[in-house]
C-alpha cells in the first residue's frame, strides 16, 4: 500500500491575489494611471453616477472605463454613448467578482496612453468583490437610499475597505425611512477613514463634490 504523506501548506488562499494586486498598483503608479474600483449592489445607480461624473471630468483629465458583469455589454455601450470616452466590457464568466489578474487582463485591452483615470465598475454585489483586491488605488462604493441605512452593519467588509461611500438617490429619501445620520454613524463604525457623500445621480446634486474628490485623488497619485 502507498504511504500517505501530509504536506503542510498553511497559506491564505488570497495571498497570491494580494501579491498580484500590489504589483499591479506599483505598475500603475509608474505609468501615472489611477485605478478606481467602484462597487455596489445591482441597481444602485453606478452607471448613471459614472455618466454624470465622467461628463464633469472628461475635459480636465483623460478617462477610460472597464465594466465588469457576468454577461451583456449594456453598461459599456451606455457609457460610451453618453460620454464618448473609451469603455470596455469584461465578462467574469459567472464569477461574482473581479480579482487582480482579471483586472490586469482587462487593462491590457484599454489604450492607457495618456489616460489619467481608469474606473472599474465591479460586478454588482456587496459581498464577494470586497474579498478580492483588484489592484485599484482606492475602493469606492455606492449605497442607494432604497437599500436602507443599515447596510454598513449587514455588509461589514465592503464598508471597511471603501475610502469613499457615496449615498445615491437622495431625492427619494423622504419616501423611504432612510436616516442619513445613522448611515454615517454605521459607516464610521466600520471605517472611521471613509468619506460619506450624499448625491443624486439623476439630478446631478452632489456629483460635483465627488468629481472634486476624484480629481484631487488622481492629481495626488500622479505626483
Amino acid at each position: 500500500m502507498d504511504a500517505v504523506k501530509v504536506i503542510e501548506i498553511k497559506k491564505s488562499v488570497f495571498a497570491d491575489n494580494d501579491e498580484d494586486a500590489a504589483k499591479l498598483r506599483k505598475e500603475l503608479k509608474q505609468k501615472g494611471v489611477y485605478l478606481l474600483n467602484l462597487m455596489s449592489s445591482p441597481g444602485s445607480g453606478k452607471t448613471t453616477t459614472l455618466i454624470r461624473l465622467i461628463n464633469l471630468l472628461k475635459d480636465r483629465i483623460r478617462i477610460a472605463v472597464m465594466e465588469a458583469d457576468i454577461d451583456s455589454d449594456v453598461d459599456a455601450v451606455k457609457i460610451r454613448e453618453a460620454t464618448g470616452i473609451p469603455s470596455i466590457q469584461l465578462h467574469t464568466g459567472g464569477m461574482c467578482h473581479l480579482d487582480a489578474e482579471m483586472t490586469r487582463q482587462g487593462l491590457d485591452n484599454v489604450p492607457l496612453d495618456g489616460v489619467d483615470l481608469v474606473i472599474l465598475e465591479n460586478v454588482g454585489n456587496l459581498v464577494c468583490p470586497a474579498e478580492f483586491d483588484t489592484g485599484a488605488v482606492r475602493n469606492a462604493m455606492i449605497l442607494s437610499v432604497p437599500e436602507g441605512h443599515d447596510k454598513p452593519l449587514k455588509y461589514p467588509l465592503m464598508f471597511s475597505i471603501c475610502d469613499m461611500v457615496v449615498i445615491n438617490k437622495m431625492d427619494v429619501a423622504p419616501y423611504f425611512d432612510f436616516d442619513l445620520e445613522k448611515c454615517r454613524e454605521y459607516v464610521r463604525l466600520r471605517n472611521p477613514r471613509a468619506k460619506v457623500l450624499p448625491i443624486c445621480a439623476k439630478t446631478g446634486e452632489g456629483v460635483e463634490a465627488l468629481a472634486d474628490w476624484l480629481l484631487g485623488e488622481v492629481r495626488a497619485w500622479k505626483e
Partner: protein
Amino acid sequence: MHELGIVFYIIRDVKKAAEENGVSHVSTVVMNIGEVSTVIPEYLTDCWRWAADKEDLLRDCELRCDIIPAVTRCEDCGKEYGTVAHGKVCPHCGSENTFLLRGNEVEIKEIVVNS
C-alpha cells in the same frame, strides 16, 4: 457564489504545491475556514467537487473544511469573547473598541498525498 472563485485559487495553489513536491495525486485538501470569513463550507465543497474532478491531480480528492471559531478581543477591558454571539460590542464592558482576533481565515492548511 464567491466560493467558486476561491475553489479556483485553491486548485492553483494545490497544483503548485504538488508540482514542488513531485506529487501525482492528492487525496485530501484540508482547509482552515474562519467562522466569519463569509465562506460557506457546504458551497465550497460543492464547487470543489465540480472543479476538482476536471483535474487528474485532484480526481476524487476530498476537500475538508476545519472551522476556526471567531474570537474578538476588547481593547478596553482586554477580555475575549465569541464574535458570532456578540458581534462588535463587548459583552463584558459594552465597549465597541474591539477587534477580530481570529475567525477570518481562508487558508489551505495541508494536503494529504500518496507517495
